[in-house]
C-alpha cells in the first residue's frame, strides 16, 4: 500500500517562496546560502534525499537472507535488509506504534524485529506479526497502517543498493545513465566483476555535504590541498611520480579528463595518465606496509603475472561520483551522509577482492592484505586536509555580506568544454564544469514539488 506523503513537516521544510533560485544558482557562481541556510537543508532532505535515488549499502554487507545493516536515508534511520525471501528492502527504523527505533545495532541478522518499548513485533518484510495483549485494542491490526513504513522503491545495480521515496523517479538504470560505464569498468577489473565491502575509515566534518560533492571531481585543489601528501609519497622515491603526482606541472594538458554524464553524476578519469601495462598502477603507489615483502613473494610464485596481481592492490585512478551521496574512488566506496546544514559524515568503505573461482591462483589473501594498507593511505594523509579546508569554508561563509562562491573555472574559453549529442560534457582535469552542471540539476530538483510516498505491506 502506497501512502502519499504531504505531512506538515515536509510542507514547512519546503523551501520558502522568497527564494529566487535563479539568483541563488547562477551560471558561474552560487550564493553562500545554499551551504548555510537551515531551511534549504531541511528542504534537501525531501527534494534530494528522498526524491532521487540515494545510495544506502552494498549487497556484500547483507549477503544472506535476513541480514541487515542500519544506516540513514537523509536523516531518516533505515534498516537495509534482505528479507526472508531474499528481497531487498529499506525499512524505516521506526516502530509503527509510537515511533521509537526498532533496531539498535549497526548490523546483524533477524527474521523478526521486536520493539524494545512495547514488544510489537514485525517480520522483516515490515509486516506486523504480533502485539502484546491485543484484546486491549478495539482494532484487529489487519490494516496496513500498523506495518512498518518502507521505501517504495529499492533497486540494486551490480551490488550497489539505492532507494527512493519518489514513485515518479525514473528506474535506477535510467537515473544512473552513462555513469554505469565507469562503474562497470571499476568492478570489472576485479575477478568475477565483484568486490566485497569491508570496514571503513569513518570521518566527519563541520560543513555542508555539498562541499564534499563540490570536491569530488575537483582537480584544481590537488597540488595545494594535498601538497603534504604528495611530498610524503615521493620522499623516498627514485622518481617523483607517486600517487597523484600527475597533477603537478600542466594538469590540463595531461590526458586525464573530467566528464559530466547527467543527473548530477560525473567522472574523473586519471587512468590515461598511467602506463597501460601490467604493474602500471603498482609502479606509482607510494610506500605501504608490507609492499616489498608481498611483491617479492608474489613474484616468486607467479613470475611476470605478479604485476597484474599487484595492480589489484593498487588504487584505481578514477573518481566516479553518483549524485547525491556516492563516490567510487581508488578502491573505496565513499558515502556522504548529511547530518545537519553544517555537519557531514564521510565514510570511506574499504573493499576486498573476492576470488571464488581462483583466477588469482591463490593470491587473494596476499592481495587483500596489501590492498587494506594502500586504502588507508588517502584517508589518513589526504582526506583530513580536504576536510579541514571544508570546515574553514563553513567558517568563512559566516561573512554574510560576502555572498558568492565561484565555480567558473573553464567557463567562457572557446573550445575548452565539449558537449556531445547526448549531453555528455568533457573538460580538462582542473575544470569546474562538473560543479556547474550538478548544481544546475540540484536547482531543478529544489524547485520541483516531489510527491513522496512510503509503502506498507498490505
Amino acid at each position, binding site marked *: 500500500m502506497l501512502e502519499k506523503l504531504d505531512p506538515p513537516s515536509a510542507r514547512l521544510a519546503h523551501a520558502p517562496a522568497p527564494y529566487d533560485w535563479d539568483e541563488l544558482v547562477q551560471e558561474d557562481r552560487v550564493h553562500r546560502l545554499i551551504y548555510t541556510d537551515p531551511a534549504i537543508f531541511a528542504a534537501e532532505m525531501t527534494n534530494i534525499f528522498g526524491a532521487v535515488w540515494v545510495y544506502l549499502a552494498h549487497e556484500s554487507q547483507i549477503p544472506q537472507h535476513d541480514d541487515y545493516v542500519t544506516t540513514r536515508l537523509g536523516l531518516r534511520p533505515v534498516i537495509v535488509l534482505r528479507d526472508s525471501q531474499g528481497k531487498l528492502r529499506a525499512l524505516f527504523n521506526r516502530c509503527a506504534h509510537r515511533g521509537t527505533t526498532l533496531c539498535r545495532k*549497526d548490523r546483524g541478522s533477524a527474521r523478526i524485529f521486536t520493539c524494545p518499548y512495547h514488544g510489537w513485533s514485525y517480520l522483516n518484510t515490515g509486516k506486523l506479526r504480533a502485539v502484546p495483549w491485543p484484546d486491549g485494542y478495539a482494532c484487529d491490526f489487519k490494516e496496513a497502517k500498523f506495518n512498518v513504513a518502507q521505501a517504495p522503491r529499492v533497486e540494486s545495480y551490480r551490488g550497489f543498493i539505492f532507494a527512493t521515496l519518489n514513485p515518479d523517479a525514473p528506474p535506477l538504470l535510467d537515473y544512473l545513465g552513462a555513469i554505469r560505464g565507469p562503474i562497470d569498468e571499476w568492478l570489472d577489473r576485479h575477478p568475477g566483476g565483484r568486490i566485497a565491502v*569491508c*570496514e*571503513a*575509515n*569513518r*570521518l*566527519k*566534518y*563541520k560543513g555542508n555535504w555539498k562541499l564534499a560533492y563540490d570536491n569530488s571531481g575537483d582537480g584544481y585543489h590537488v597540488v595545494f*590541498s594535498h*601538497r*603534504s*601528501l604528495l*611530498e*610524503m*609519497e615521493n*620522499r*623516498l622515491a627514485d622518481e617523483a611520480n607517486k600517487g597523484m603526482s600527475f597533477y603537478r606541472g600542466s594538469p590540463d594538458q595531461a590526458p586525464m579528463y573530467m566528464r559530466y554524464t547527467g543527473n548530477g553524476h560525473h567522472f574523473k578519469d586519471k587512468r590515461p595518465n598511467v602506463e597501460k601495462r601490467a604493474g602500471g598502477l603498482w609502479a606509482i603507489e*607510494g*610506500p*605501504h*606496509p*608490507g*609492499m*616489498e*615483502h608481498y611483491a617479492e*613473494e608474489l613474484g616468486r610464485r607467479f613470475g611476470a603475472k605478479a604485476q597484474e596481481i599487484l595492480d589489484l592492490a593498487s588504487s584505481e585512478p578514477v573518481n566516479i561520483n553518483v549524485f547525491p551521496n556516492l563516490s567510487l574512488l581508488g578502491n573505496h566506496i565513499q558515502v556522504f551522509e548529511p547530518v545537519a546544514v553544517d555537519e557531514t*559524515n*564521510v*565514510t*570511506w568503505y*574499504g573493499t*576486498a577482492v573476492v576470488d571464488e573461482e581462483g583466477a588469482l591462483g591463490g593470491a587473494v*589473501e*596476499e592481495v*587483500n*592484505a596489501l590492498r*587494506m*594498507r594502500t*586504502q*588507508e593511505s588517502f*584517508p*589518513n*594523509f589526504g582526506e*583530513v*586536509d580536504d*576536510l*579541514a*579546508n571544508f570546515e574553514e569554508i563553513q567558517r568563512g561563509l559566516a561573512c554574510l555580506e560576502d555572498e558568492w562562491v565561484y565555480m567558473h573555472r573553464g567557463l567562457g574559453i572557446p573550445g575548452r568544454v565539449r558537449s556531445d549529442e547526448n549531453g555528455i560534457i568533457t573538460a580538462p582535469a582542473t575544470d569546474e564544469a562538473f560543479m556547474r552542471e550538478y548544481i544546475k540539476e540540484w536547482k531543478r530538483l529544489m524547485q520541483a514539488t516531489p510527491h513522496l510516498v512510503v509503502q506498507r505491506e498490505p
Partner: protein
Amino acid sequence: MGFASLNPSYMPPMQPTHDPSLTSYYITDAFYRELVENFSDWQRDELAIGDPAERDRFRALLEREARLLDQLRLDEWLAMYSPECVYWVPATPAGGDPRREVAISFDDRRRIEDRIFRLRTGYAWSQAPKSRTVRMISNVEVFATGRETIRMVRSNFLIGEFRVDGTRFLSGWCGHRFVQSEASWKIQVRQVNLIDCDQNLRNPSIIL
C-alpha cells in the same frame, strides 16, 4: 688483518639486510598472524604482574611516551620503538584482522616516519594550526607473556585536544607490546583502541 682475526669468538654486529625505515619486509603473513594472536586474550588475571617496581617501570615509560607526544618531540618518541614496529589503531572495537579490513591507522616504521614527515612539511592543513594536547595515562597493568623479554601492558588514556574551535577528549585504551633489548624496553607494537573507533571521527590527524 683486522680485529676479527685476533679474536675467534668475535661476532660482527648484525647488519639488517633490510632497513625498516626504507623498506617493509617484516610485514608478512606470519607477522600479521602473530600480531592478531598476541593481541587476543592477553589481559588474563593469571598473567598479571603485581610487582609494584615492575608496574612502575612500565608506567614511567608510558608517561614518558605521552609527554614526548604532547611536546611533539617525535624523533625521541619514535626512538622508544623497536626498529620493526607497528602503530595500530583498529577501526573495530575488538581489534579485528588487519589483513582483512582497513584500520584507522596501521603504520609500520616507514609509515610512522611518513606520518611524522607529513606533519613537518607545514602543509598538513588538518594540523595547521597544530593541536595542543595533554594526555592522561592511567590504569596501567602489566601482563606476562610466554617470554621473559616480552611484556604486554594495558593502559587507559584520555587525550585533551584543543584545536581551533574548542577542546575535545579522545578516550580509549592501549595495548603495548614491549620487547627487552639490551638494557632497555622498546615498544614493538602499540595498539590504540578508541572507544568510538567505529564511529565517524572529526579530524583524526594527531598521533594518538
